[in-house]
């Protein structure tokens, strides 16, 4: 195959675009897709301070790389989840990238800073590990961004992630989640803006970006995610994509452009009814936020440090 742009031998073919690209034009294609996402959804301006949630995986490192290449002020935040060797290796890749590129990396360690690890939290609360992990991430990314004065938190959610979440939300007709599922979640009292600049790139593209840019990342899948529902949705969508290239993008972008507005009312006002958590001050519907409740439950089960400010 030849590069669509320059006719040189191609490094990667992308069936949904019916195109192949050489290294340089593929990297340009990725950067253009991210620029389009940022501009179309007004994610942030060059003057904004961006905090990138970095895990050591392909998506978040590709995102950090593309944002800093484009000239944005983007620092990284790594959250240590305490998932044994997997977390140790993830941290090594993240630190190596930050050091090599002379970028600012902030670190939070769940065990050292909050007294628990994700596997313990999952067991203590009888949640799926991904649920305890996601809850911790959402709370701590937001609170760290507020504490350090960032305007926006950027995450590495890609086209496949968002299409899989959308499929799950549609299968359950979860109208509240459908009303919130957008590439930008605007800021609100107690919440910084959250954005997903990789929403126009598949995870095959973000992985190829890392390979072609020479970015080393954690290839191994999180051991706690094995068999989860989200991965099952991705398999189903990829089976459809193989028969009908472009279906994932049409599904997701069709929803963002034409479907989301029909559900916006179902999510409207959710953030207007929030009070402050009596432990940490974060916005919550109850007296104590979900993150502090999780910490309290874990401390009862494993004797972790009692909840304090977060």
């Amino acid at each position: 195959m030849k590069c669509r742009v320059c006719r040189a031998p191609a490094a990667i073919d992308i069936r949904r675009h019916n195109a192949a690209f050489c290294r340089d034009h593929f990297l340009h294609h990725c950067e253009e897709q991210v620029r389009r996402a940022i501009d179309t959804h007004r994610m942030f301006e060059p003057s904004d301070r961006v905090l990138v949630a970095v895990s050591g995986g392909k998506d978040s490192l590709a995102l950090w790389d593309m944002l800093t290449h484009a000239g944005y002020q983007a620092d990284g935040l790594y959250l240590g989840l305490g998932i044994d060797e997997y977390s140790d290796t993830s941290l090594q890749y993240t630190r190596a990238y930050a050091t090599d590129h002379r970028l600012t990396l902030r670190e939070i360690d769940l065990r050292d800073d909050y007294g628990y690890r994700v596997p313990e939290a999952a067991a203590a609360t009888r949640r799926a590990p991904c649920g305890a992990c996601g809850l911790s991430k959402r709370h701590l990314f937001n609170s760290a961004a507020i504490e350090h004065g960032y305007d926006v938190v950027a995450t590495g959610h890609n086209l496949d992630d968002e299409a899989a979440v959308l499929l799950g939300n549609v299968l359950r007709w979860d109208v509240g989640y459908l009303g919130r599922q957008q590439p930008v979640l605007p800021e609100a009292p107690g919440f910084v803006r959250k954005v997903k600049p990789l929403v126009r790139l598949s995870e095959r593209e973000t992985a190829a970006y890392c390979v072609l840019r020479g970015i080393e990342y954690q290839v191994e899948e999180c051991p706690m995610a094995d068999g989860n529902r989200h991965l099952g949705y991705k398999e189903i969508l990829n089976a459809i994509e193989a028969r009908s290239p472009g279906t994932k993008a049409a599904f997701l972008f069709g929803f963002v452009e034409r479907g989301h507005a029909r559900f916006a009312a179902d999510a409207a006002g959710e953030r207007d009814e929030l009070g402050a958590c009596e432990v940490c001050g974060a916005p919550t519907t109850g007296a104590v936020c979900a993150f502090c409740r999780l910490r309290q439950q874990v401390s009862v089960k494993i004797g972790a440090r009692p909840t304090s400010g977060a």
Partner: protein
Amino acid sequence: MTVDALLRNLELNPESVLVIVGDELVTHDIRLGNDAQIEIRPVISGGAA
């Protein structure tokens, strides 16, 4: 054998992997040599967060 045929034989969805020969990422039409060092790298990741 081409990359495409290899993935079909292994029953792997081309959307879910990259194929790297030596240090080079390759497209699905590339014919693989008998002594090629081939890495089939999965790209699917993520929990439900």
